């Protein structure tokens, strides 16, 4: 296939086709989403691919496929593994027949995440092998090996790239796509697949018995290797190992960890040949803990004695700084950089014409002194508009709202949740809120797509991951089935209409649901929907600033007058807000 310049996730996706994977499932989440986004649009696919409604569902599907003898891949971001943790833990007991690779992409520095958890800890917890690539090429090469390893030990393998692997680019040497895919067949074996206590006790023992051979095999496969070059040594993992390789001074030994569990005997042999060890790894001290267990009285420098940070991501200057502090480098050749101060920030912002902005505007207008729990999606950016008071994890808008309601706060509680998030883990929260008599208003921000992660379809979109037609779920019927009697759908571009519905909801007791339904403005543009642009009639504009405070990036303020720039998508919401009627459609007076 030759060499290509690819995004890490594209290289991973290609490696899956080289591995003869037959089934792929996952839930979108940065930085993991592009793997399925690439695989789902390939022509002449021999594999099955789906976007599942959440990670638990995705993993259980994939596990069953692997039981049937077909190679399966399941992708998610690190926090998705929390959702899938229930099947994950027991999948280690039941094991697999064909290879099952669980890609859990970590996000050190939380570029696009709610926390910085480390998927290697899950592998440790579940006693599953974990592969931790240090470069895009290695990420690519590890995938076929991960499937082989999974089949050899009959265990799911956790593959843990990080943001700087998934969203980096590089020249990658690719292999040939595998020909054909195995056909699955389920062989009944209750002692393996029915984890009643009598069976699971046996399975647990089997899992533990696999560990020593697994540790040895990971060294044999060359994922964990070393080079002795002196009396001091650096042990590094993941992208940290790549930075160390760029900086490694002469006469310093180097051990690279790319797979877990680590063979302690093997590591001990290396450590005992040195007088001083530095450990470089992102996030949890997973390698360092093993190093400390075997190091005895040999000094170890790392997170636990304050030489390296527990948080954030590493970089060349950061690693050089740690090496300098621990005495492995005379001087850090980099500087932290002095960014120019006091520049106006340019954070990500809701798009011009985004339905969320107008929905939030109406919510704030009706519910002035309210509490606003929210959720995970583009609309978390509503924080800038003062209508996001809480965000924890997927689906935690409606549950936090009902919790606050039960805590006795008497203010109105209005929570917001996107359609994809509602279908992911929001339904249970709503069911619970109705069942237990919470007093809340829930607004479903329904843009028909999973927008934030790159516009993946969901059960609300009317099509599957591969573009085949599927029945679009009725959010209205779903909410009513949960027991909500007040369910109203409204177009959030119609501010008056939305305000009227919200006022009605405010008067009612119990759980009220409003579905604010409008296509994502990016999907609309891609679908060729054109609405006329708007402009400001300077004669009528009094410069009152009402439209500017709305916060749309299409509205600027120049010489005491508002101006609509070319980002305008024609949603017409600002025209409705303008008290003097100065904002009109282009070409109209």
């Amino acid at each position, binding site marked *: 296939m030759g060499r290509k310049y690819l995004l890490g996730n594209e290289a991973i996706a290609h490696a899956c086709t080289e591995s003869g994977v037959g089934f792929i499932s996952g839930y979108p989440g940065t930085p993991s989403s592009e793997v399925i986004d690439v695989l789902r649009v390939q022509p002449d696919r021999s594999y099955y691919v789906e976007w599942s409604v959440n990670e638990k569902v995705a993993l259980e599907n994939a596990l069953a496929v692997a039981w049937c003898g077909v190679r399966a891949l399941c992708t998610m971001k690190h926090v998705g593994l929390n959702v899938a943790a229930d099947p994950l833990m027991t999948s280690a007991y039941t094991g697999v027949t064909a290879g099952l690779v669980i890609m859990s992409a970590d996000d050190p520095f939380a570029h*696009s995440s709610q926390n910085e958890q480390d998927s290697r800890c899950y592998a440790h917890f579940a006693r599953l092998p974990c592969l931790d690539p240090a470069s895009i090429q290695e990420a690519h090469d590890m995938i076929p090996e991960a499937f082989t390893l999974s089949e050899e030990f009959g265990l799911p393998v956790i593959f843990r790239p990080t943001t*700087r692997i998934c969203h980096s680019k590089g020249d990658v040497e690719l292999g040939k796509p595998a020909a054909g895919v195995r056909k699955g067949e389920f062989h009944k074996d209750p002692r393996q697949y029915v984890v009643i206590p009598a069976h699971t006790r046996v399975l647990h023992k089997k899992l533990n018995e696999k560990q020593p051979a697994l540790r040895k095999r990971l060294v044999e496969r060359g994922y964990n290797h070393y080079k002795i070059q002196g009396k001091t040594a650096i042990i590094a993992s993941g992208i940290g190992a790549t930075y160390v390789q760029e900086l490694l001074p002469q006469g310093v030994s180097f051990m690279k960890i790319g797979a877990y569990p680590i063979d302690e005997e093997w590591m001990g042999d290396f450590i005992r040949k040195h007088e001083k060890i530095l450990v470089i790894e992102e996030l949890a001290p997973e390698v360092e803990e093993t190093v400390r267990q075997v190091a005895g009285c040999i000094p170890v420098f790392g997170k636990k004695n304050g030489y390296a940070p527990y948080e954030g991501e590493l970089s060349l200057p950061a690693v050089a700084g740690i090496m300098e502090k621990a005495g492995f480098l005379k001087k850090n050749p*980099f500087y932290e950089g002095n960014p120019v101060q006091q520049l106006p920030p340019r954070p990500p912002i809701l798009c011009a014409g985004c339905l969320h902005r107008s929905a939030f505007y109406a919510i704030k207008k009706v519910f002035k002194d309210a509490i606003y729990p929210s959720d995970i999606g583009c609309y978390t950016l509503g924080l800038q508009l003062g209508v996001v008071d809480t965000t924890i994890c997927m689906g935690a808008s409606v549950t936090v709202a009902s919790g606050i309601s039960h805590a006795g706060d008497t203010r109105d509680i209005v929570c917001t949740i996107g359609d994809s998030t509602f279908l992911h883990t929001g339904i249970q929260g709503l069911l619970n809120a109705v069942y237990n008599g919470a007093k809340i208003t829930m607004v479903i921000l329904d843009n028909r797509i999973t927008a934030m992660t790159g516009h993946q379809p969901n059960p609300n979109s009317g099509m599957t991951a591969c573009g085949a037609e599927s029945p679009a779920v009725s959010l209205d019927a779903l909410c009513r089935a949960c027991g909500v009697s007040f369910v109203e759908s409204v177009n959030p571009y119609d501010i008056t209409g939305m305000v009227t519905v919200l006022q009605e909801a405010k008067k009612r007791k119990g759980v009220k649901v409003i579905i604010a339904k409008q296509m994502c403005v990016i999907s609309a543009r891609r679908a060729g929907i054109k609405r006329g642009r708007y402009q400001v009639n300077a004669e009528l504009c009094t410069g009152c600033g009402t439209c500017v405070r709305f916060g749309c990036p299409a509205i600027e303020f120049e010489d005491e007058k508002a101006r609509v720039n070319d980002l305008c998508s024609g949603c017409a919401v600002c025209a409705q807000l303008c008290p003097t009627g100065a904002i009109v459609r282009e070409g109209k007076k």
Partner: protein
Amino acid sequence: MSGSFDILIVGIGGQGTILASNILGEACLIEGRYVKGAETHGMAQRGGSVESHIRIDGLFGPLIPPGQADLLVSFDLLEALRYSHYLKKEGKMIVNRHLVLPTSVFTQKLPAPTQDEITEKLKKYTLCLLDADQMAEEAGSPLSQNVVMLGAASPSIPLRSESLIDAVKRLVPKKTVEINVKAFEMGREFGRNC
């Protein structure tokens, strides 16, 4: 230490920094050279400040450390200043004169530097300032602004212009090849004398 030629492309989400970096990567492959890069994905793209790192002949990590970039290509005037500390002392800056003020300036009434103030501050660097928006318009589409910028940067990049043009042809949508090649050449012509 890495002997790579490090280029940082910055701008605002939606301006096409990713395509520009893809063109550079593709051109490296055409010349059989190693290349590493990194970019902003996910929610951070939505109208926010974005960066693409490209390390030509890069063998190790994808990120350019501050003070190490050989070239800074900025699609927006303000973003050039925001990332200026990434540039080496002897590095060069190719900057689109166009300034988009962040919405925060209007909604939070934050003070914003003027076009002249920013230009003045950038003068301490080797600077090539151009009106890429207008040139893109002349080339046939305002969307080709990113390729104009790449063209203007190209005389300072250790890649052959034929490789870059070849990469442009491979990566831009088929219908826009002619416009983008023109945009590249207009940019390159400007960059040569700048």
